[in-house]
């Protein structure tokens, strides 16, 4: 049924979608990665909402601060509990935009980049839930998960199956000024990605495909 509706999609979606028409570059030395993080009202994908999105681009192993993205979303559903964690009040200091506008800007920003987050599946599911509310299909981007990448390195000798961003930042000696702001977490994730990637490259020549986690392992948390 989707093809049938396609022409009804808004322009921004079509523009986004067009980026995937041609064969995608998979050379990890040249492609653009977008490291992103969402802060949300909670962990329930259906009920909770995105409070903010922060993202930063990486090309040629370099984090480009000029290629970054940050937005705060106005809320209809608002849970007080999450304020304690994220410090984002409903009527906080940041200028807010509507969910629709935020998603539109985000798609326009990410284009066909490879997305990276810590526990990517959750962040992508949150974006996809937004898209669904707007009557749009899911994200088309390839995605990597930092936790999974870390487990692929020689550094992980533990039997631990789950690493929080705090754990990893500590392991890699990254100061954590801005934990729990979307941009701050995205930046820490970006630094971690560069570190993990250089570890993996020490081991052997790697392809984008090898970095991707098998579908079965993409759990929600």
């Amino acid at each position, binding site marked *: 049924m989707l093809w049938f509706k396609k022409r009804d999609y808004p322009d921004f979606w079509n523009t986004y979608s067009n980026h995937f028409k041609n064969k995608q570059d998979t050379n990890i030395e040249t492609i653009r990665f977008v490291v992103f993080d969402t802060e949300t009202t909670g962990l329930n994908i259906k009920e909770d909402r995105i409070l903010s999105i*922060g993202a*930063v681009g990486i090309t040629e*192993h*370099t*984090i*480009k*601060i*000029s290629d*970054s993205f*940050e937005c705060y979303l106005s809320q209809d559903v608002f849970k007080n509990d999450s304020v304690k964690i994220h410090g984002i009040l409903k009527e906080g200091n*940041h*200028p807010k935009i509507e969910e629709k506008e935020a998603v539109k800007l985000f798609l326009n920003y990410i284009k066909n980049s490879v997305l990276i987050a810590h526990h990517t599946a959750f962040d992508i599911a949150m974006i996809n839930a937004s898209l669904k509310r707007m009557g749009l299909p899911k994200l088309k981007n390839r995605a990597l998960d930092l936790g999974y990448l870390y487990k692929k390195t020689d550094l992980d000798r533990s039997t631990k199956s789950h690493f929080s961003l705090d754990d990893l930042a500590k392991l890699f*000696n990254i100061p954590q*000024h*801005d934990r729990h*702001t979307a*941009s*701050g977490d*995205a*930046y820490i994730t*970006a*630094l971690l990605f*560069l*570190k993990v990637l*250089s*570890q993996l490259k*020490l081991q052997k020549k790697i392809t984008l495909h090898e970095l991707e986690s098998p579908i079965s392992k993409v759990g929600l948390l």
Partner: protein
Amino acid sequence: MNTIAERIYDFLKGFPPFSMLIADDLLSICKSIEVHYIEKDNFLFKANEPVKDKFYVVKDGDIGLFTATNDLIDECDEGDIFGLRALMRQGIYLLSAKAIEESIVYSISSTLFENYIASNTEASKYLMSNLVSNYRKTNDDIQEHHFLGIPNNTGPVIQDFLEEQTADYSKNPITCSPENSIKEAAILMTEKRVGSVIITQKNKPLGIITDKDIRTKIATGLFSIDENVTKIMTSPVITFPKNITVAEAQIAMLKHRITHLCITKDGTVNSELTGILSEHDIIVIREHNASVLIKEVKRSKSIEDLKQIRLRAQNLLKRYIEQQIPITFASKIITAINNSITNKIIENAIKSMGNAPPTTFSWLAIGSQGREEQLLLTDQDNALVFDDVPKPELKKAKDYFLTLSKKITQDLNTVGFEFCPANMMASNPKWCLSVSEWKQQFKRWITSPDQDNLMLCTIFFDFEPAFGNNDLVDKMSEGIFESISYHQIFLNHLGVNALKNPPPLSFFRQFLVEQSGEHKDQFDIKARAMMPLVDAARLLILSNNVKAHNNTVLRYEKLIELEPQNKELYNDCLLAFKNLLRFRTEQGLKHQDSGRFIDLKSLSKANRLELKNCFKAIKEIQELILVRFNLSQFL
């Protein structure tokens, strides 16, 4: 809105030149910064690669700059900038940048640099002086001046050369011949409105007559005005070559208690007179507070007067430091004032003894005071040497000098030079000896160089007569060299001692701070940075068999002369020592203490850079000592 840029802003604003930029400009830079992660041993760029359109700032880690032959030239850590020189020069990189540890590095494009940094006067001045001082061995400076749009004759580096500024002197000295009468000379002086006349023969200076001579020798009726000028002239004159510095001139005048110096072609009395430099000329160049203080010392009536003068000298020092007067000049002035106070106290003490000393003696400043490197008001370190007397009279002589020394040290204490807690004072029978006893003592230390004796050598070998007979001091020096000539192995022990304190390798890692005690986590600038340079200079000068050079700066200057092949290294040591001495004095004045222990957190980035350069010099001189004295087998 960009949280990440704000965090980068928070980091950069702590470091020059970014700290000098206005907030909006710095934030604009931060919004466009690129962040690189470099694994240990990986390169950011390599020598001979084309220069990238950016320069770098270290966020975390340690980046080494290497030559194409893999020699480490510089290490950059938190807040350090590199690649800027290459960016200005364009073309290819001359050095490689390799991560010594895994590092996070920011890069800033040339466009951002030009828009926000080069356009800021303060920031570009800082960069210029920083690049010039860090890389003075290369020839790119002129291009940088051009690039930054700063004329060549400005910038903070200039002040460092004030010391080398030559003194302006009168190039048309008024002269007369030895055949002239005193009256003729006085008429000449009156006509030319000058306070002095030089008596010359074949253009060479024979002597000088000043207003004072007319007053004290003619007006008093001692000589007739028809007598020959040679009757009342002071001869010989003190001569210097034309490139005499302001500092040298002032020192010479203080030392010889004169007001005029003759400038001759080759600086000796046996060459053509070319000019005269008067105290007034010096006053014109500098305020003359130091000489005023010394004059007041001479006129002083009580210990309380001297105490006040010493306090004023401290204020004078403070002003010298604030005005960036060269540190060696400041230390010479302070030493001269301290010496004149000591002299005054000794003269008074002798008077109060009732009877004259049984034989000649010399009062010695030892340790840092003997090296004339003590600017701050610290405790006294001194010793006394007296001429040999027949054995039956030795005890009596010693009793006299011990009593005298007690009076002197007591008065010094009252003036503000507190008693030495380790009792290294002439009032201690161990340090109040005849020449022969001193020689014996030195010989004992040299032949059995255990830890304690080596420590004593490092203090007592650096002596400078503050009062009295210089022959005795020369004999002491001879004693040292004689004993060493029979026990060359002593130099190896002294060498091991000089290597006791290796320099910190880099600023944040392995920066040696005290592990315990009152000064825990503070850096001991004396033991860790200054003493290694002092010890190295003493060792090298002793091994070169050179006498009468007790000052560390003079020692390195002498070493440069003796070993031109090591000129660069010795010069680095000399500069490092001057910087450290200034730094310690600044810290001491600021915190009202000895300046010895430094809280690392209080240091500015510029201070850190300066200290880092000092450590490099220490490392290199210690390597030279290790090799030269073949010490690897001793360590």
